């Protein structure tokens, strides 16, 4: 167009004005908390330190960021991105390019020295992630185009692929610790099996348990960590007092947690929405405060240590004569217990998923989902909402109890510190970010959020770039909170928002979550 050039001048002015405004707000917001820092000096008096360079950098970043955002041709960019992400060929090329770039970065990291090594290694890791993303995207887009859902053979083939993928995922999960053992050795694998594998699986299980309450029954529970705590303390106290084994106490802890779930469920039957959220939050806090203050029973802040570890049919994982290693004639290694615990939590998590999938098809599961969509219609249909809510609370709490007793057995030490509101918030975030009700979504969200924050621990590379004092782990929860806000703005219904009916005639049609209006359940 001919008049494009003169029209762009006011655009620039507008963009500059917007960027200036953003910079001004940033100055206002960061001036007291970033530019100044209150620290106690040697005489324990508060004095101020200043950090003007950091402050200036952050304000400049805000200015440039807003300016770039305003000047980007959003419509054209969106179109380009959309065509890019719909073409398997382009995605495959992008994957190949990032693979080559990652390889080059890796080679550079071997030859360069000083901080350049760290930077090159960081690039190599990021590019490797890009490669996997693009490659998976290319295959997925190709499959979607090749087998459309509109034709019968396409649907059939998609179904086959879906079954294959699930089998593959379970196979991968089963092989994961052994793979890590093979790749990283007995010492190096502990981190990958314990910090990543077990930690993520605990949150996947908690997410799936809470998914029953929040995702299926639509009851927002902000005190889920209370049941996790009940499970953990039941196991720790009963095992230490009566010397019972993990396998006897695991179901018992689940039953106790379910009992507490019903106990919470009764008073809150009439509440809905945000009110329910706040009362469950208060309930969770009461449990935690009682755990802190009832020192005779729980040992207060100090917690309970020396919680017995689970055994494999009575064989402990110790270096002793009757230990696992000696019994099987292999060399003792700490990794054996981690691998065993990994399989235990994998089994528990898969059990949770399986039971939930089966329950959804039963009348009770369908009643939960009906309750989530519209409580009044539910009552009009003659569904007993009291029983429906109580079973949701009880079954959700039971899985929380299982996870709690596993947690106590894995850690060997528990204290009220592990059961703060923050844990509940993290679990709720996983369920909502994953897409309420979607099992795959919850698992993906747990992997991204927990795996991501655990990965922050591993980024020693950043230390080499930003200096010795830089501690990436500090930023874990900061980024977690930021990610919660951003994902909500980007996808308010969670990562996987499609609704699939659990009972259907002839063909299963997925409905986008945006078309489902939830009542005030």
């Amino acid at each position, binding site marked *: 167009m001919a008049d494009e050039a003169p029209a762009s001048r006011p655009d620039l002015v507008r963009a500059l004005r917007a960027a200036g405004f953003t910079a001004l*707000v940033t100055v*206002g*917001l960061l001036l*007291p*908390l*970033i530019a*100044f*820092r*209150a*620290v*106690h000096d040697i005489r324990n008096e*508060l*004095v*101020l330190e200043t950090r003007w360079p950091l402050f200036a950098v952050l304000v400049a970043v805000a200015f440039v960021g807003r300016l770039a955002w305003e000047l980007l041709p959003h419509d054209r960019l969106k179109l380009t991105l959309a065509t890019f992400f719909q073409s398997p060929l382009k995605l495959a090329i992008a994957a190949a390019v990032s693979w080559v770039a990652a390889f080059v970065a890796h080679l550079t990291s071997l030859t360069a020295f000083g901080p350049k090594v760290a930077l090159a290694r960081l690039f190599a890791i990021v590019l490797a992630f890009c490669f996997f993303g693009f490659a998976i995207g290319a295959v997925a887009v190709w499959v979607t185009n090749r087998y459309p859902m509109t034709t019968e053979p396409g649907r059939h083939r998609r179904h086959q692929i879906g079954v294959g993928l699930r089998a593959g995922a379970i196979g991968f999960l089963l092989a994961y610790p052994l793979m890590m053992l093979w790749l990283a050795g007995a010492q190096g694998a502990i981190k990958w099996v314990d910090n990543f594998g077990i930690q993520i699986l605990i949150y996947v299980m908690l997410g799936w348990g809470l998914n029953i309450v929040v995702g299926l029954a639509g009851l*927002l529970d902000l005190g889920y960590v209370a049941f996790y705590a009940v499970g953990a303390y039941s196991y720790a106290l009963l095992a230490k007092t009566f010397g019972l084994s993990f396998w006897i106490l695991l179901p018992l802890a689940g039953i106790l947690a379910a009992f507490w779930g019903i106990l919470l469920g009764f*008073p*809150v039957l*009439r*509440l809905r*929405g*945000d*009110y329910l*959220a*706040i*009362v469950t*939050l*208060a*309930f969770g*806090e*009461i449990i935690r*405060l*009682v755990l*802190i*203050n009832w020192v005779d029973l729980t040992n207060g802040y100090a917690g309970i240590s020396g919680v017995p570890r689970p055994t494999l049919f009575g064989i402990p994982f110790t270096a002793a004569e009757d230990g696992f290693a000696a019994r099987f004639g292999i060399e003792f290694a700490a990794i054996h217990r981690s691998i065993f615990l990994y399989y235990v939590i994998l089994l528990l998590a898969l059990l949770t998923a399986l039971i939930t999938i089966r329950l959804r098809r039963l009348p009770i599961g369908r009643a939960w989902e009906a309750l989530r969509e519209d409580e*009044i219609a539910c009552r009009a249909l003659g569904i007993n909402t009291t029983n429906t809510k109580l079973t949701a609370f009880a079954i959700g709490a039971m899985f929380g109890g299982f996870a709690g007793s596993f947690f106590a057995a894995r850690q060997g030490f528990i204290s009220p510190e592990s059961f703060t*509101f*923050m844990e509940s*918030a993290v679990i*709720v*975030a996983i369920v*909502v*970010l994953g897409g*309420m009700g979607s099992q795959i979504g919850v698992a993906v969200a747990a992997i991204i959020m927990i795996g991501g924050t655990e990965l922050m621990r591993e980024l020693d590379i950043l230390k080499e770039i930003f200096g010795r004092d830089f501690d990436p782990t*500090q*930023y874990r*929860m*900061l980024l*977690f*909170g*930021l*990610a*919660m*806000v951003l994902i*909500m*703005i980007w996808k*308010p*219904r969670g990562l996987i928002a499609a609704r699939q009916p659990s009972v259907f005639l002839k063909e299963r049609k997925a409905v986008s*979550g945006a078309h489902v209006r*939830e009542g*005030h359940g």
Partner: protein
Amino acid sequence: MEVLIQQLINGITLGSIYGLIAIGYTMVFGILGMVNFAHGDVFMVSAFVALIAFLILTSWIGASLIVLALLIVLILAMLYTSLLNWAIERAAYRPLRGSFRLAPLISAIGMSIFLMNFVQVAQGPRNKSIPPLFADVIVLFTANDYDVTISYKQLVIWLVTAVLLVAFWYVVSRTALGRAQRACEQDQKMASLVGIDVDRTISITFVIAGALAAVAGTLYWVNYGVISFADGFTPGVKAFTAAVLGGIGSLPGAVIGGLLIGLIETLWSAYFSTDYKDVAAFSILIIVMIFLPQGLLGRPEVEKV
């Protein structure tokens, strides 16, 4: 009897702080129907800003003009927190308006986690303590060798709270802004049809809520002299309890609820056990929600199909 009166004085002091925070919850809930979970952390941030402003001022003008310094600190904290709350609404809540009902709550929880950790990273995890301000007390009367006292600090807190509540009440009930706010509370679509800028009204609501939280934060910091990054959560939940107790959406209810929670907490600590004072506050929340879900002054919720 003497102990009771002393505890009443302490309880009203604590209760006015809770009341100021509770107004923020109740206003935002009234207009948007969401629990602004980050409000407790906004309160905590304001206390930090007050601390830093105080340190800057005392390093300039010395410790002589402490009353003037505190007044400036209060105004600075109010300005800062207004800006912060405005920015939070703009960035984290406005894009989610009209979205599905859990989205703003999750966003608010994320914001709360973000603010808490931002302060931890920016200012360090240690408690920040200052030497006590206005430590002098007035002895009201003495009975059975027990001095019933009221400190200057407490008087300042009462006075500031009372002045601000009157000003706030005037704004909401007597000005065009207050009318617009009440109109948006009742029906946003209808309000926009009669020419009220709903977005602007909501922004101003957040600004006022932030300013009141800053007053609470500054007073809390003056009263206790210690602040840490984790101090937003518990007062926040208690203030929410106060808002619910008074009837959420009702402004006088929030103040009355705040005073009641403050009194219950101090009396419980004095006569039973300090350890379980938070348990008492949370139990009250649960009991009120079960038996009196609309609160003391709230309107019962009518369910429409």
